[in-house]
C-alpha cells in the first residue's frame, strides 16, 4: 500500500516538474509513470516470491560459474574468435555500418589513450580533444602544403601530440583533481580557439579542405569505408596491444600507485613527476594517431570537430566502460558511437512516435541510468576490483569499497 502511494506521489511530482514545459502532455507523463510504477511493483512482488527468487539465484550462480570457467580457459581462443569476427565484419555489412565501425575504431584509440591519463594515472583530463586536433591539423597542413604521405604523418602526428602532452603536463603537475580538470579544459578550448582564429595558417572556421587520402603505392588510394576499416583495425589492435603491455608493466603499476595515493607512491621511490608527464605524453600520442587518421578519412577538418563536447564524450567512454579496464573502455567507445546512430531511426512501432529528434535525450538518459546501475562501468577493471574488494567475503562487499575509496580520496587531499 505504502509503495503504491509512493509511486503515485513520484508520478505527480514529475507531472508538476514538467507541467510548465509540456502543458497538457504532463498528464500523459503522469499516466505513463503510474503505469511504469505499477509494473515495477508487480515485478518486485514477483521477485520476492520464493520460487522466482530461487530460480534467479540459480541462474546467476550458473552465469558466474560460466564466467569463471571462461577466465580459466585460454583467453587467446576468445581473442582469436573476436579477431576473426572483426576481420570478417565488413564483408557482411553495408558501407554505412562499416563507416560507423571506422568511427568506433577511432574512438577506441582515443578512449584507450585517455584511459592512460584518467583511468590509470588518475589525472582528470577534460581537454583531451586538443591532442586529437593537433594530430588532425598536423596531417591536414602537411598534406595540403607539402603533400606529405599519410604514413609519414602518422608517427609525426603521434610525436607532435605527445610533445603537446608534455607541454600541458609540465606546468600543471602541482595541480590536483578538479583544478587540473579546469586547466586541461582551458587548454582544450585554447587550442580550438586558436585553430578557429589563426586564419592565415588554419584557414579558421573554413577548415582544411582537400586533405589527401592515404594511398599504397601509386595505384591504390583509400576511398571506401572498408579500406579505412582495415587500416583503423590495425591501428586499434596495435593500440590495444601496447596499452595492455603498458598496463601490466612497471610503468602501469606506478601510474596506479599514483592514482591511489600520490604521497605513498612518491615515498616508495616512484618519480611522480616523470610518471605523470609520461602518462600525459603516452595518452596524447594515441589521440594524435587518431587525429591523423580522422583527417585522412574525412579529407576535411574544421575546428567544429574538436569541441569540449568531444572531450566529454571520450571521457564518458572511459568512465562508462570502466576506468582502467581495456575491454571496458573498448565497449564504452563502441556503445557511445553506436547508440546515437541506432537512435537515429528509432521508431516505436506501436506508437508511431518519431524518436529521431529525441535521440540525444535518450542518450543523456541512458548515460545517467547506466551509471546508476553500474557505477564502476560496464566492465570494471579486474585489478581495480581486486583493489577495492580485498576479501571475497560477501558481507564486507557492501561496506568495503566506500571505505577504501574514502581513504584513498582523503589521503590525496593531504
Amino acid at each position, binding site marked *: 500500500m505504502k509503495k503504491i502511494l509512493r509511486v503515485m506521489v513520484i508520478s505527480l511530482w514529475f507531472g508538476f516538474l514538467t507541467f510548465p514545459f509540456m502543458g497538457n502532455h504532463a498528464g500523459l507523463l503522469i499516466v505513463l509513470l503510474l503505469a511504469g510504477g505499477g509494473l515495477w511493483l508487480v515485478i518486485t512482488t514477483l521477485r520476492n516470491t520464493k520460487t522466482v527468487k530461487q530460480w*534467479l539465484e540459480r541462474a*546467476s550462480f550458473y552465469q558466474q560459474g560460466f564466467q569463471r570457467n571462461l577466465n580459466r580457459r585460454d583467453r587467446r581462443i576468445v581473442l582469436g574468435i573476436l579477431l576473426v569476427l572483426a576481420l570478417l565484419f565488413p564483408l557482411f555489412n553495408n558501407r554505412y555500418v562499416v563507416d560507423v565501425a571506422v568511427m568506433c575504431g577511432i574512438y577506441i584509440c582515443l578512449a584507450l589513450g585517455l584511459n592512460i591519463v584518467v583511468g590509470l594515472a588518475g589525472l582528470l583530463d577534460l581537454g583531451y580533444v586538443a591532442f586529437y586536433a593537433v594530430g588532425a591539423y598536423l596531417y591536414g597542413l602537411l598534406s595540403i602544403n607539402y603533400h606529405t604521405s599519410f604514413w609519414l604523418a602518422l608517427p609525426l602526428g603521434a610525436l607532435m601530440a605527445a610533445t603537446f602532452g608534455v607541454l600541458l603536463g609540465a606546468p600543471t603537475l602541482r595541480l590536483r583533481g578538479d583544478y587540473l580538470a579546469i586547466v586541461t579544459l582551458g587548454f582544450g578550448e585554447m587550442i580550438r580557439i586558436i585553430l578557429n582564429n589563426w586564419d592565415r595558417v588554419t584557414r579558421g572556421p573554413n*577548415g582544411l*579542405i582537400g586533405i589527401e587520402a592515404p594511398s599504397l603505392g601509386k595505384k591504390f588510394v583509400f576511398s571506401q*569505408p572498408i579500406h579505412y576499416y582495415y587500416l583503423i583495425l590495425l591501428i586499434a589492435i596495435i593500440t590495444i596491444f601496447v596499452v595492455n603491455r603498458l598496463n601490466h608493466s612497471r610503468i602501469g603499476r606506478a601510474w596506479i600507485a599514483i592514482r591511489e595515493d600520490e604521497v605513498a607512491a612518491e615515498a616508495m621511490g616512484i618519480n611522480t613527476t616523470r610518471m605523470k608527464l609520461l602518462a600525459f605524453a603516452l595518452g596524447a600520442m594515441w589521440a594524435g594517431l587518431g587525429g591523423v587518421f580522422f583527417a585522412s578519412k574525412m579529407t576535411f577538418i*574544421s575546428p567544429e570537430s574538436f569541441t569540449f563536447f568531444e572531450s566529454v564524450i571520450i571521457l564518458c567512454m572511459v568512465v562508462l566502460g570502466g576506468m582502467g579496464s581495456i575491454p571496458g573502455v573498448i565497449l564504452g567507445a563502441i556503445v557511445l558511437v553506436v547508440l546515437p546512430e*541506432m537512435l537515429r531511426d528509432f521508431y516505436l512501432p506501436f506508437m508511431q512516435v518519431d524518436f529521431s529528434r529525441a535521440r540525444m535525450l535518450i542518450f543523456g538518459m541512458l548515460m545517467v541510468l547506466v551509471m546508476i*546501475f553500474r557505477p564502476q562501468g560496464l566492465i570494471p577493471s579486474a585489478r581495480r576490483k581486486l583493489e577495492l574488494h580485498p576479501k571475497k567475503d560477501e558481507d564486507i562487499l557492501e561496506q568495503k569499497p566506500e571505505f577504501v575509496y574514502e581513504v584513498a580520496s582523503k589521503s590525496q587531499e593531504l
Partner: protein
Amino acid sequence: MRKFLFLVLMATLIPGLMAANAYPAEETIKLGLAGPLTGDQGAFGEQLKNGGTIAMEEWNEKGGVLGKKIEIIWGDDQHDPKQAVAVANKFVNEGVVGVIGHFNSSCSIPASTVYTKVPIPQITPASTNPQFTERGLRNVFRVCGRDDQQGAVAADFIVNTLKKTRVAVFHDKTTYGQGLADETVKGLKKLGVEPVFYTGIVQGDKDYTAVLTAAKQKNPEVLYFGGIHPEAILLAKQSKDLGLNTIFVSGDGVFIQEFIDGAGPAAEGAYISFTPDQEKIPEAQPFIKKFRQKFPQAKEVGAYTIYSYVATNILLEAIKGTNSTDGNKLIDYIHKTKFNTALGPIQFDEKGDVLESPYVFWQVKNGKFVQVQELKK
C-alpha cells in the same frame, strides 16, 4: 535488485532497437534530406524538413514518380561535419537517388566527397560558401546564392545607396559568417572603402558590449554583421544601448522573424540582404498557400522552406525527365535543363550555381521586413 532492473531495461531496449530495422518493404524512390534537424540550429532543420515534406506529398498525391511512391529519408547532422559524413554514408547505403542538403557549408562540403564517389546529385538549399561548388565536382548544385554574390551586393548597397563610408564589420567566426563578412570587405575595398573596425566575435556569448564599446571609439556609421540571428539580435540591441548611432546591415542568416521579435525597437531600420519577396513571385504562391494549409500554426513560411521545396522538386523533375534513377544521368540532366520552380526559372552553370545573383536588400519597418530594392539584372 539493481542488476535485475538493468537486465529488464536491456531486455526491453533490445527488441526496440531491433525493430528499428523493420522498414516498410514497399518499393519506393528514396531521396535523402539532411540538415541540423536537432540541436541548436534545429529551427533551420525544421524549415528544410517542412519544404521537403510538402514537395514529397504533392508528388505522391499525383502518384509519385516512375510509378513508385517517393520517400524522404531524414538525416540529422547536428551541424557536425563528422555526423554529416555518417549521414552521407547512410544515404548511399540506403540507395538514395538524390540528396537535398546539407544546411551548413561545413557539412555540405565533407558530405559531398561521399556523394561524388557514387555519384549522387546533391542540391543544397542553404550552403552559401563558394568553396562548395568551387572544387570541380560535377554532382553539387545549389539553389541559393553565394556569399561572394551577397557580399558584393551588400558592399554596393552600403557605399552607393546608403552613401556611408565608416563601416564596422563583425562576424561570428563561422564558415558562413566570416565568409560573408570577408566577401563584403572585399567588395567594400573594391569600391575604395576601408572598414574602420573589423573583428570576429564568439558565437554563443551573450555579452558583446566590450567589443562594441571598442568599435564605438572609431565612430562607425554602419555596423555590418556576418552571422545568424541570435548574435545579430544581441549586437543590434547592445549597440543601441551603448549609444552607437549605426545602421545595422546584415545578410540572409538574419532574415528571420525572430530577429525583429528579439531585437524589438533596435531592429527598426536595419537592412538585411535576402532573395526577392516570395510573396511577390507569382510562381511561389501555390507553395505558400499549401504551406499555410499544412502548418496553420506557423507564423511565417521560413527563409529556407521554399529552397528545400525547390531542391526536392528539381530532383524529382530530373528523375521524371530522365526516366531513371542513375546518378550520372540525373546530374547531366540537372546541368542541362532549365527548371520552372517556385522561385522562378532556375538554370545551373557548369559549377552548379544558379546563374544570376538573387540578392536584394530588405529593411525592417514597423516590425516587418519590407523589400526596399529591386533585383538588378
